[in-house]
């Protein structure tokens, strides 16, 4: 595997706040990543630093093996679609696309034109006057049509309805298949992107708490439901990340793939197993580390 991005001991502080806390990771070439985490977890800080739009407090960042700061060789191969991208006041969509075309060597005008039609983007309206969804469409079109070797999408879907989001996901997979490249997709709509991302990176409180192949975590956790005593007997010795009870019925989420033998024991004990989606797994894992953090601080 070739890495296109290497980050070592990266830290970003804003006055008293630590946004990124000594993280080390690598991004492999031609893989679609999901960069997931709560608001304020540090996702945008990391992406801004990797695209040289912000400075690291300390640590080392290499993009294509080079320092990205004021480095035209690197930056023309990287596209960053920001959630809050600013455009000049009088700019209309064609101006934004023409600028992108000059900047990105792999730009596809054909793909751009097709996406403009599919997203039904008004080309004669000033970008300032576009709706939130149309503004997002401008970013998505630039991100896809630039065919940059590394493309960051920071919550690119704001204001896009379900149909437009599906269009984005479908075109992303389609164009990625024809023109493989590295994509880092930051999103809160985890279940929507779960099947598109090959690897998942989860950031929580400025630290990376998950860096894995998405398919490998699909059976990583399970929720066991049934009589509390029977559930407790089964989950004893396993890592519990969530527990809910109602009367004498408990629903407990445990980490660990269930073996055929486990399933047999569950059947015999009359317990039910519910699958845990990537979204639920991340929510539970994040809550779990939050609780551990609060308890650690209280001690």
């Amino acid at each position, binding site marked *: 595997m070739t890495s296109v991005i290497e980050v070592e001991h990266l830290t970003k502080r804003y006055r008293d706040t630590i946004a990124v806390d000594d993280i080390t990771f690598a991004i492999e070439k031609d*893989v*679609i990543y999901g960069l997931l985490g709560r608001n304020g977890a540090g996702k945008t800080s990391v992406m801004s630093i990797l695209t040289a739009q912000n400075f690291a407090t300390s640590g080392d960042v290499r993009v294509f093996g080079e320092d990205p700061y004021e480095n035209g060789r690197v930056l023309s191969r990287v596209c960053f679609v920001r959630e809050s991208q600013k455009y000049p006041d009088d700019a209309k969509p064609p101006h934004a696309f023409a600028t992108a075309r000059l900047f990105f060597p792999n730009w596809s005008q054909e793909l751009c034109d097709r996406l403009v039609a599919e997203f039904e983007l008004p080309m004669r309206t000033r970008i300032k006057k576009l709706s939130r969804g149309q503004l997002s469409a401008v970013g998505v079109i630039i991100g896809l049509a630039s065919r940059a070797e590394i493309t960051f999408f920071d919550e690119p879907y704001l204001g896009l309805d379900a149909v437009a989001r599906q269009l984005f*996901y*479908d075109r992303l*997979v*389609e164009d*990625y*298949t024809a023109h493989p490249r590295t994509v880092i997709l930051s999103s809160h709509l985890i279940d929507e992107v779960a*099947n*598109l*991302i*090959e690897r998942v990176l989860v950031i929580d409180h400025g630290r990376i708490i998950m860096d894995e192949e*998405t*398919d*490998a975590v*699909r*059976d990583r956790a*399970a929720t066991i439901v049934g009589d509390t005593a029977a559930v407790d007997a089964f989950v004893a010795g396993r890592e519990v990340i969530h527990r809910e009870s109602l009367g004498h019925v408990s629903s407990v989420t445990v980490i660990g793939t269930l073996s*055929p033998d486990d399933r*047999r024991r569950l*059947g*015999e004990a009359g317990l039910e197993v*519910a*699958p*845990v*989606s990537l979204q639920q797994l991340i929510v539970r894992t994040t809550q779990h580390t939050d609780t551990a953090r609060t308890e650690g601080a209280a001690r």
Partner: protein
Amino acid sequence: MIEEGRPLFLQIAESVEDSIIDGSLAEEAQAPSTNELAAFYRINPATAAKGVNMLVDKGVIHKRRGIGMFVSPGARDLLLAERRTVFADRFVEPLLDEARKLGLGADDLGQLIRERMTASHTDTEGPAR
């Protein structure tokens, strides 16, 4: 179509296997490509490729350079033998466990299975036609 809680590459491989077992994908016929599977199930192409590679490793499908993927001769028999073992583990074992508790022997089970098969046969064939 896609279930939560199980790796996608396994589900993709099983969907192709199911088509071979039920005969809709004949031996020597062209199998769906990685890209077709990725587009149809709306999943990452690398994950679809992992499922396809698993089938290649098993000898269920093979690649013809420059043309595509094809179902290998003998693939159906291979899969049926594999599924038979899985069936025994997943369904027959628990059935036998429960039968032992109830004191049912092999003859009693055979009798029960024949009764139910006749009943469900009449159910599906009877009013529907």
